[in-house]
């Protein structure tokens, strides 16, 4: 029974991952990230990803406030934020977000406020989407660990 549940969970997790890969939301960096998980830090991935989310939210807030500013001139600042954003998203393999950042940066380099706003919305959307999906994934994995914990040592 437990085995069945574990199998189902694993299948779910794999399906979800496959979906994320398929849609170009994640890339292989995420897999590599998963490989970095070991006994000493079993929650490595979720840890890192949570840090990422935390940072990202801060960055998104900053970006939005920068863009909403009436006499808006913070393109430079925005670039720095975006670089950070890009760096951390490529580190966890969040490919789509990275691409959205690229677009955003392009827009900001052209000093196009409308473009920036659009890009920001897209970025926020992508971010929320990824966040949800990853939360889902972690949940599944959590359950897996719980389900498997009794019987087997952790896989992989």
């Amino acid at each position, binding site marked *: 029974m437990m085995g069945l549940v574990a*199998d189902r969970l*694993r299948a779910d997790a*794999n399906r979800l*991952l*496959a979906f994320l*890969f*398929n849609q*170009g939301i994640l*890339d*292989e*960096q995420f*897999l*590599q*990230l998963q*490989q*970095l998980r*070991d006994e*000493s*830090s079993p929650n*490595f991935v979720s*840890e*890192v990803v949570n*840090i*990422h989310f935390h*940072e990202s939210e801060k960055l998104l807030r900053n970006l939005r406030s920068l863009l909403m500013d009436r006499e808006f001139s913070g393109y430079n600042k925005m670039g*720095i934020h975006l*670089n*950070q954003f*890009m*760096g*951390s998203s*490529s*580190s*966890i*393999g969040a*490919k789509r977000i990275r691409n959205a950042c690229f677009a955003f940066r392009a827009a900001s380099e052209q000093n196009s406020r409308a473009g920036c706003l659009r890009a920001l919305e897209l970025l926020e959307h992508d971010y929320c989407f990824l966040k949800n999906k990853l939360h889902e994934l972690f949940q599944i994995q959590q359950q897996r660990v719980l389900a498997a914990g009794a019987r087997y040592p952790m*896989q*992989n």
Partner: protein
Amino acid sequence: MDADNKVRRKEVLSSMCEQRARMLQDQFSVSVNHVHALAILVSTFHYDKDPSAIDQDTFAEYTARTAFERPLLSGVAYAERVKHSEREKFERQHDWTIKTMKREPSPIRDEYAPVIFSQETVSYIESLDMMSGEEDRENILRARATGKAVLTSPFRLLGSHHLGVVLTFPVYKSKLPSKPTVEERIEATAGYLGGAFDVESLVEYLLGQLAGNQAILVNVYDITNSSDHLIMYGHQNQDGDLALLHESQLDFGDPFRKHQMICRYHQKATTSWTALTTAFLFFVICLLVGYILYGAAIHIVKVEDDFHEMQELMVRAEAADVAKSQFLATVSHEIRTPMNGILGMLALLLDTDLSSTQRDYAQTAQVCGKALITLINEVLDRAKIEAGKLELETVPFDLRSILDDVLSLFSEKSRNKGLELAVFVSDKVPEMVMGDPGRFRQIITNLVGNSVKFTERGHIFVEVHVAENPKPIDDAKAETCLNGGALISGGRRFNTLSGYEAADERNSWDSFQHLVTAKALQDDASVKMEVADEASQSVTLMVSVEDTGIGIPLIAQHRVFTPFMQADSSTSRNYGGTGIGLSITKCLVELMGGHISFISRPQVGSTFSFTTVFGRCEKASLGVGDTKKSNAEDLPSGFRGLKAIVVDGKPVRAAVTRYHLKRLGILVEVANNVKIAASACGKNDSSCGSKIQPDIVLVEKDSWLSGEDGSMNLRMFDWKHNGHMFKLPKLILLATNITNAELEKAKAAGFADTTIMKPLRASMVAACLQQVLGTGKRQPGNGMLNGSSVLGGLLCGKKILVVDDNMVNRRVAAGALKKFGAAVECAESGKAALKLLQLPHSFDACFMDIQMPEMDGFEATRRIRMMETRANEQMNGDTDQGSVRKDEWHLPILAMTADVIHATYDECLKCGMDGYVSKPFEEENLYQAVAKFFKTKPVSDS
């Protein structure tokens, strides 16, 4: 020309005019003379004879018969002078009254001049009083006064209405005194002879006789009254060439009257044909020249336009080509990413519990996926090369170990096929060279892979020599071998690795031996040589990969290096592959500064050989004295000084075995067969091991089997050694592939110790020997030499500082490095890093993000370097301090960057960094970067 023409025209006109004038004048004077004669006739026969000998009839007849003498005169008539007093008598005598010109009876006048004789042509004027006409009267008066012929001004003649003049001669009754006065003349006048010149028809007739009549227009004028020229002939207002006229004076014998002839051309000067044609031709020529020039100009413009167009097209084509390559690179990269996902997922899938069928499917999918990735990588490589994006590394690497690696890759396949696979590297090839090991490996892998694919029997032999003054004899031999295909003889045994014939006979034993022995000879002088060699910065290697496969068909040989071209379509059917490998290989070889060529004979084999230029490795950069240790795989040094005998009938193969053993530091003797080996041993035995006491005897399987009394000989070994107290030499069988039965037989024969399966690799040989000799404290990790374990070995226990402002990145980098066993510390800014790196510190390396707020990676690195230099300077002054660490502080700093494209390597180096890694850490990438610094440190230290 035109002027010339005009002058000529003028001359012609004047001469024609003169000619006409003279003629007219002559004719005129002839007529005048004749009229004169008539006058004399009348005077003689009418007045001097009494009675008169002339009457009207006589006169008419005579004049008619002599009319030809006066062609100009229409007729002549004689009028008698009659005074009024004599009129009655005269009228009576003639029986008619005197009439005026108007045919009326004449009024009374002083005197009359009635015509009494007339030529028939003018008979109508008989009895007319000539004095009644104004013109005639004047004429008559003037004539009798002068006694000469006089002319009237031109007027219309009565009969014909032609213009004419009347000529009048006086006839005197008696002889005049010699010099008569006017009164005397008048007194003596008896009558007047007159004739009418019909000037118009006359001139017409005259001109008709002359050539060129049509061309000119003749006018004759009476110019007595200079203000009013009277026309005598021609029309007053006739068209003609008014520009040019010629005037000729006419003298008709009447001094009172002056006449003039004016000639003009009928038509305006027709500009001469020559002038016209010349002008026309000139015009045409000008036109043509103009047209030619115009055409040329147009052509030049067109060509220029075309040229520009072509240039633009070329630029566009090149751009398109680059774009294509970039596109390919991008697309391949984009394909690679999901493919990695697929492969990753497949790997995950294979980890799950699967039924055997499912596993089979999944494995197949994985294999296919891997093949696809390989292909994509190849395409990417090619595209990168074409786009000029492929950059070669320059890092020190060990050629031999790379060759061993490649061989080990193919060992399974070659063993299955029963192929001999061997590598031989000349001693002269430096231990370490500078270059791109990855690309070199790729080249070798491609070539060997091809060879393995296309070879079913025989051998594959990789050779590396230093390319130096190529031997002309060999080349010549190669030429004949290449060109004269008939050289091959049937039953010959070839001195190649496996005894099969190879395409390029340069690799046969003769030349091989030549190379090897030459090298051996040079070993003595090697010190000198090395000094010389060291001087040059680079070394050119000649690598050849020889196989005895199916060869390349002659027709396909020229397109072997063209991408996607295999020898023929059946090739890909039978052997698979895309045919892109060789083209990439060629590109790579050329990038490395070399050439690739091949010699191939169908059904015999192919030999690909290429040259490549590597930098020499400065010994200093490798740490002192541990060049051996710097190999990626460390060969154990525990075999140094051991002695071995290799028994092998084939010298090339023996040389290969020897080469591998030599790398382990084993002294090697080669024996052709077992007997010789045994006797060698025996001899040595007798001299009590003074020379060679073999520790190991390696026997090639062929040699063992071919010796019909092989086993006996082996026993001989045993026997001989049993008799001594010396350690027995270990017997080792070398085999490409071996059946179980043979293995049993071998064991029975005395090869109890072990069998080494070929292809030989130094590390594998070392492992086997360790097993046999029992020296083996087996080193951990030896034998499984894949990337991560190596990386683990490299990084294990190292203390590494990661500097990145991005927490996520920091975490990931730390995680990745931790995974390889490194102790990681993090700093979130350049300043924090500086604080941590205050000397002395215990970090072994530092990974530095470039883009950081406040202080970026470049700046931080610069400061770290400054600190180090200061410390080093102090240390040089005070040597005691540096005892713990190396002589100098130099922390390897590696840049971390997400944008590999923008991160210019140069910039990293400029500010003192040692290299860079692209940010999501890839194992290989990380390994390459890290290997440079930690390689030199022995792994065993950790």
